[in-house]
């Protein structure tokens, strides 16, 4: 050890002259751009899905109602409140946020003497509410899957030659992957007309517990084969996942469950109805509403007979929806389960002809009317009377019944809803078989963005060769000297909706077009055929703008008569199912009330 080692340390005395490195006023020092400071929440963007609460490992987040934010489709109306006594600033809530509404500011100093102040609602409280800097997740969310698992479907060339089902259905692996994307927020449940336990049955798919899944399905819907294929799946339009990706394929997952449970097992799982209660109910119409009501009533021990005018049960599910969307055997399985509950379905039995309404009234404790909308409307523009002009519902019914229908080489469809797509695509298949080519023009009042048909129907129709002319208003069915149809004359629709969103088409008469075709099919709207009621009952009933008046519980003005389904409400299978449950409940409540009276 030398002198050097005694003296060297003193050389650092030079630092005496350095500026101090401490920060003079640390209170005002801003955090870095990415700093994870106090939370911010874009209240309009937030949908109250509660995913932030779920992921929080500190249980720091509560979902609370906010004044002025009401629950609505796809928004629970709740917003996160954060307890800063627990928060650990990990920002998993920000990363998992389904909409990207939840972020963090770079603010990190907050002094208050009231500890309860530190339970605060980002987006409402906090001076840093609108600060730009602070933590936001980089890019789209990565903590839950963004892209939907692809569904295998037949290619257009393969499917146009036949009526085979297009959608393959998920394999187990695919279904589990798709089910994995669900965050179980449950926003979809309110949107589903039948309020199916969607997150729960998706969880059952994840767990590969198909028995549990099936039981969950049957709690709210006896038509899962049907709804798993053709449901309008409004649930998917309120799915939290759609905000930064594809909504969960809820419909396909439902179908997957039902695909995985064999028919006999379904009956086993549902179990037998309760003891007969001695009541009798007649249901008119074997569509989704009528059969759902029948299922519920039968399970509650009521003796149920369903009267169906057509040759087979199913209503529009069979006679409206083409086989390539909903194979008949799938529908038969759903109906089979309902029959296994003891429901008797009398087909080819038209009320008003084969059995009288008065008899039904007399012989039953209640009658449920679920007749649907089976009468096609006509535009009644000039030229619609006479051969060569058909209504879509009639044609679809005839195709289902296996009847020979006229198939011209070139035809025109009027309408932009699913029925229009159904008939166009059905006729396309028949044309393909007959001529080897598709010759279909479809015209609709609506512009393509406002079609009532499901977007995938439009896409698939086009793939199959249907030529779509949107925003065209039909003016005349053109006929030649012999009276044969030669085409449809249309005007362009300038605007279709008024300020209130009601139909009020305005035409540009100068933009006229004639769509060639030797047949015109009208698929514009449907009406209920209420002639079965007979004059006396029609007079006795109260009506509401053309429809039988019902109350919230589906009671008509006649105490023994109830009505449900498209004929009174509409517009789709799942709504009809929901109606069926509701009307069944009302009927049972009515029975209990009568019991008390006696």
């Amino acid at each position, binding site marked *: *050890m030398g002198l*050097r*080692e*005694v003296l*060297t*340390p003193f*050389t*650092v005395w030079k*630092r005496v002259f350095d500026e101090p*490195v401490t920060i003079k006023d640390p209170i005002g020092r801003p*955090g*870095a*751009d*990415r*700093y*994870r400071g106090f939370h911010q929440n874009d209240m309009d963007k937030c949908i109250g899905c509660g*995913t932030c609460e*779920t*992921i929080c*490992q*500190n249980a720091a987040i509560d979902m609370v109602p906010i004044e002025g934010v009401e629950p609505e489709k796809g928004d629970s109306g709740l917003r996160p409140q954060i307890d800063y006594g627990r928060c*650990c*600033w*990990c*920002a*998993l809530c920000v*990363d*998992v946020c389904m909409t990207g509404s939840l972020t*963090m500011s770079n603010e990190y100093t907050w002094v208050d003497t009231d500890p309860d102040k530190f339970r605060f609602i980002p987006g409402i409280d906090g001076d840093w509410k609108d600060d730009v800097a602070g*933590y936001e*997740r*980089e890019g789209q969310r*990565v*903590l*839950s*899957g963004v892209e939907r698992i692809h569904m295998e479907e037949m290619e257009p060339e393969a499917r146009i030659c036949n009526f085979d089902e297009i959608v393959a259905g998920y394999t187990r692996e695919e279904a589990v992957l798709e089910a*994995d*994307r*669900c*965050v*179980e927020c449950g926003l979809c449940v309110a949107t589903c007309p039948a309020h199916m336990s969607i997150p729960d049955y998706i*969880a059952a798919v*994840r767990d590969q517990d198909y028995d549990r899944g099936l039981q969950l399905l049957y709690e709210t819907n006896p038509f899962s084969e049907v709804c798993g294929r053709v449901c309008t799946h409004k649930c998917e339009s309120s799915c939290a996942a759609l905000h930064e990706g594809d909504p969960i394929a809820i419909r396909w997952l439902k179908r997957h469950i039902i695909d995985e449970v064999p028919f006999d097992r379904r009956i086993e799982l549902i179990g037998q109805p309760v003891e007969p209660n001695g009541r009798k109910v007649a249901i008119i119409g074997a569509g989704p509403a009528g059969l759902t009501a029948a299922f519920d009533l039968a399970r509650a021990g009521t003796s149920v007979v369903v009267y169906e005018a057509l040759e087979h049960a199913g209503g529009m599910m069979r006679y409206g929806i083409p086989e390539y969307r909903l194979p008949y055997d799938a529908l038969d399985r759903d109906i089979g389960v309902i029959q296994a509950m003891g429901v008797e379905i009398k087909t080819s039995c038209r009320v008003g002809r084969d059995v009288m309404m008065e008899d039904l009234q007399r012989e039953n404790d209640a009658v449920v009317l679920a007749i649907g909308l089976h009468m096609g409307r006509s535009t009644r523009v000039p030229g619609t009377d006479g051969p060569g002009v058909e209504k879509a519902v009639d044609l679809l019914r005839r195709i289902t019944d296996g009847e020979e229908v006229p198939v011209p080489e070139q035809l025109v469809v009027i309408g932009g809803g699913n029925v229009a797509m159904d008939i166009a695509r059905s006729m396309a298949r028949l044309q393909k078989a007959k001529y080897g080519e598709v010759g279909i023009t479809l015209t609709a009042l609506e512009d393509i963005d406002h079609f009532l048909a499901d977007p995938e129907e439009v896409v698939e129709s086009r793939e199959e060769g249907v030529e779509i002319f949107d925003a065209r208003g039909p003016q005349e069915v053109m006929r030649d000297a012999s009276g044969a149809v030669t085409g449809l004359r249309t005007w362009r629709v300038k605007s279709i909706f008024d300020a209130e969103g009601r139909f009020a088409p305005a035409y540009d008469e100068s933009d006229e077009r004639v769509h060639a075709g030797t047949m015109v099919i009208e698929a514009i709207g449907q009406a209920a055929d209420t002639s079965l009621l007979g004059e006396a009952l029609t007079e006795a009933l109260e009506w509401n703008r053309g429809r039988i008046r019902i109350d919230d519980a589906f009671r008509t003005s006649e105490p023994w008569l109830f009505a449900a389904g498209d004929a009174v409400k509409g517009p789709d299978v799942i709504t009809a199912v929901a109606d069926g449950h509701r009307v069944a409940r009302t009927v049972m409540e009515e029975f209990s009330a009568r019991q008390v009276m006696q």
Partner: protein
Amino acid sequence: MFSFKPDRSQYPAAGEDGKLEIDLETGKYLKLWQGPNHPGITGNMSVELTVCGDEVVKGTTHVGYLHRGFEKLMERRTFIQVFPIVCRVCVPEPDFNEYCYAAAVEDLAGIEVPEYADWMRTLILEMGRFNSYMMFLGGIGGALGLGITGQWMTYLRDIMLDRFEELTGARIYHMFILPGGVRGHLPEGFEGRMEEVLDTAERYLADIDRVMFSNSVFKTRTQGVGYIDPALFEPYGVTGPNARAGGVAKDLRKDSPYLVYDQLDFDVVTHTDSDIWARSNVRRQDVQVSIDLIRQILRKMPKTGPAMAKIPNVLHWKIPRGETYIRGECSRGEYGYYLVSDGSGYPRRINVRGPSYTHAMALLEHMIPGTNISDVAALMVSLHTYPPEIER
């Protein structure tokens, strides 16, 4: 100048079975508690010393002052929810927890992490190592009465924390390494600001060399003090700089390269003396290795690329049944996570293997007898232990 050679032939007295016979009633011995609240850098642990004169005859380590039951807490959380907890096991160098946990989950779940994330993780770990060494260099100075090093090192650590802050969004618990990757990319202009930090650090470290390693007092008090016989390394599970100071050139970064260490150029620092001086020197040199590595990483790492692999929905992420062990070379030695999954959405068991577990317990207790009271602080610091790793 000074030489301290205690005569151990007289005391403490040993019984026939070789056990020490310490009878406090004799007045010959005194119990003295070093910690848990002492101003050193070893954190909240205490050593119960039995002294005779100024010589320590026995030392017993006591921990439990910051036991929060992390391992148990983790069992009650989903795999993603464990992520914010792990870093809290070690304040000065939390990132190893994040890395080891993430890598363990990835190993069991079969997830391939994107290249960018591997580089970023390496960068984070080296930045953390730098900070941890700052704590050490400040601490060892403080333990021997050199207050200035602590101030400088705190400053250097602080400007490195600034870089952590702008990169990860937090200063202490970065929570940046997610299972599946990392949370983000380098901010614009990060390399330049990092270079400023490294440059400043190098200037200050040069002064550390002057004030500490060229200081006769420091030398005298550390050379030959706190010697660990390399033969004890394996029985006592000694790893990291503590072992390297005894000539064992083991460094997991080299021996079992993880992340991108096989693409980086660096040497393993060793020393032969295995005393406090050697351990301090190894760490001092290793800071330079870290500084060089940070520079290399920033130069070599890809500029773009995904930061995260595709992972399942974390809200119901189930990890396949199995067990794994992931380790890395942290500033104190082998850091590891032993993860057991029973196939559910919650870990069955997570065991954190921190180097302090062996260094501060069995090893320290073995070393203490015979030291001078005034050297105990330096001895404790020289093992570079962080008690939360022990009690987790």
